[in-house]
């Protein structure tokens, strides 16, 4: 029997499964930390976690509140600096980047800056932080966020972090490192990738109980729907227990 799980636990489980062992991941605040920690404790024991404030290769004991928290360099191989980790990213050492966002478009461009006009924002978000750097410099960027038509939009209010910009070849044309870009998007409804040639978002899998229609309804742009759509595998009991160890207070996964 499948144990009960929350959508956040499912997201973290699916995200963790994308991270290969012996690769490096640039980890952002919140769910990305849980996913990276989960991967390290299950399928990818030699996953190299890197945090923007300078934590390199930690064995994070418990969910940190901040990406500069002492937990981000607990039993680490190095307690370094932002210059060091950003330079390593720019030089090509970071396989995966892990981001959240307030808005995303079909090319995987992200907004974490404002809703409304920049001069007179309806809602002011924190801005790029390290997101633009991660999305610019890591080989493959994974985005974890909630999906609805207000967040999955045709046109962003502000393009904070580059996805494939306006299509194939655009990243290279503006001078971003060649061969980089968004790789996967994970939401409470499903898992997405980007079309090899068109660089537009395409559905890869839906979560158990979710239909392709649900996905289309929650998307404000035209999504590529392939003939074959897989269904994700829910987290087994042992994985749920591990997540509870990682986030005992339920800060991200809830209670």
């Amino acid at each position, binding site marked *: 029997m499948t144990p009960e799980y929350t959508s956040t636990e499912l997201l973290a489980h699916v995200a963790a499964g994308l991270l290969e062992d012996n690769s490096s991941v640039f980890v952002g*605040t*919140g769910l990305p930390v849980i996913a990276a920690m989960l991967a390290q404790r299950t399928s990818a024991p030699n996953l190299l976690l890197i945090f*923007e*404030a*300078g*934590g390199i290769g930690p064995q994070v004991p*418990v969910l940190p*509140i*901040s*990406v*500069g*928290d*002492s937990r*981000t*360099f607990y039993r680490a191989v190095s*307690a*370094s*600096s*932002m*210059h060091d980790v*950003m330079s390593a*990213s*720019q030089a090509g050492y970071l396989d995966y980047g892990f981001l959240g966002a307030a808005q995303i478009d079909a090319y995987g*461009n992200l907004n974490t*800056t404002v809703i409304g006009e*920049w001069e*007179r*924002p*309806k*809602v*002011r*978000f*924190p*801005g*790029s*932080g*390290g*997101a*633009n*750097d991660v999305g*610019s*410099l890591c080989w493959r960027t994974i985005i974890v966020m909630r999906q609805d038509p207000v967040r999955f939009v045709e046109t962003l209010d502000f*393009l*904070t*972090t*580059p996805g494939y*910009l306006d299509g194939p070849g*655009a*990243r290279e*044309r*503006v*001078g*971003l*490192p060649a061969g980089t870009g968004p790789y996967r998007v994970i939401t409470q409804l499903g898992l997405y990738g980007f079309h090899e040639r068109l660089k537009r978002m395409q559905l890869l899998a839906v979560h158990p109980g979710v239909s392709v229609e649900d996905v289309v309804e929650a998307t404000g742009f035209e999504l590529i729907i392939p003939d074959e759509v897989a269904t994700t595998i829910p987290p087994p009991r042992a994985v749920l227990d591990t997540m509870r160890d990682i986030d*005992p*207070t*339920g*800060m*991200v996964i809830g*209670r």
Partner: protein
Amino acid sequence: MNVLQEGYGTLVGWSDPDRHRAWVAEHKSRALKDKRTTVEEAIGEYVADGSLIALGGFGHIRVSMAALYEIIRQRKRDLTLCGKTAVHDCDLLVAAGCVNRIEVAYAFGHELRGLSPASRRAAESGRCEVVAEISNAGYQWRFLAAAMGLPFIPTRVMLGTDTLQRSSAKVVEDPFTGKPICLVPACYPDAVLMHVHRCDKYGNAQIDGIIVEDFELARAARRLLITTEEIIPDSAIRESPQDTVIPYYLVDAVTEVKHGAHPTLMPGRYYFDEQHISEWLRLSKTDEGVVEYFDRYVHGVESFAAYLDLIGGEAQLEHLRQVEHLEAPLEAPWLEEKRR
């Protein structure tokens, strides 16, 4: 070089490198002298109304709160803040009305705790003006350019985005590869406040754990004010010079303030005071609450020691030490509110 694009954000803190060199030659003493002073005097002398300021650490990690509270206490005005991953520091300075302009890499947020009610209100109402956007790497490389005495640093971030459009960076054609490259301008803050684990009376300072961008920021600062958990003898510095992050000639003032980063996290010493931060997040939902908070914890206390008594004294500080060392569980009242 062929300029391909110019961001139209306001350029803050830039200086022609020769002008900065001349300023350094005139104003930064290379004398090995005792720089110990009080926070009150240091802020009074080096933080003028209208200056560009930056705080060391990481927004709510290793922030010189003792110096920050003093800025609020002295009611400094019209400051511009380097929002280089600004969290609790930005929130308080904006809410107090000290900072009314900010260049934003990260601001108005509290990471996992959510958005910052007070500073976000100020940004959305126009009380605090965002003068430019940038990324975290971009900001830290602005300080690196300044630290190196260069006009700019070439980078491969921000390209193709609105972040670049709203920044003070320029895109040029790189003469080596022929590809577009983003140049971030040097940034020399007028005053930088930094909290460290230990330093000597001359300002030779050591930091435990991650340095974040304090290596670069200390070297970019025109005036560098250090608060420290402890002042140690010069001989102790000389016994482990490899641990010195900041040499004395960069430093203008030194003050010993034990627990001077409270309620922010001091790596290896004490964890975030989530009880206290929760109180701020709750009170700062209204302008009246903001006044109440500052009256109680800043204007209403005579010294930093009196402030520490108010937040729970020795018992609470011991608890924070235990949480930092994973000897006691984390309790965060804001979590209950978030779950509702």
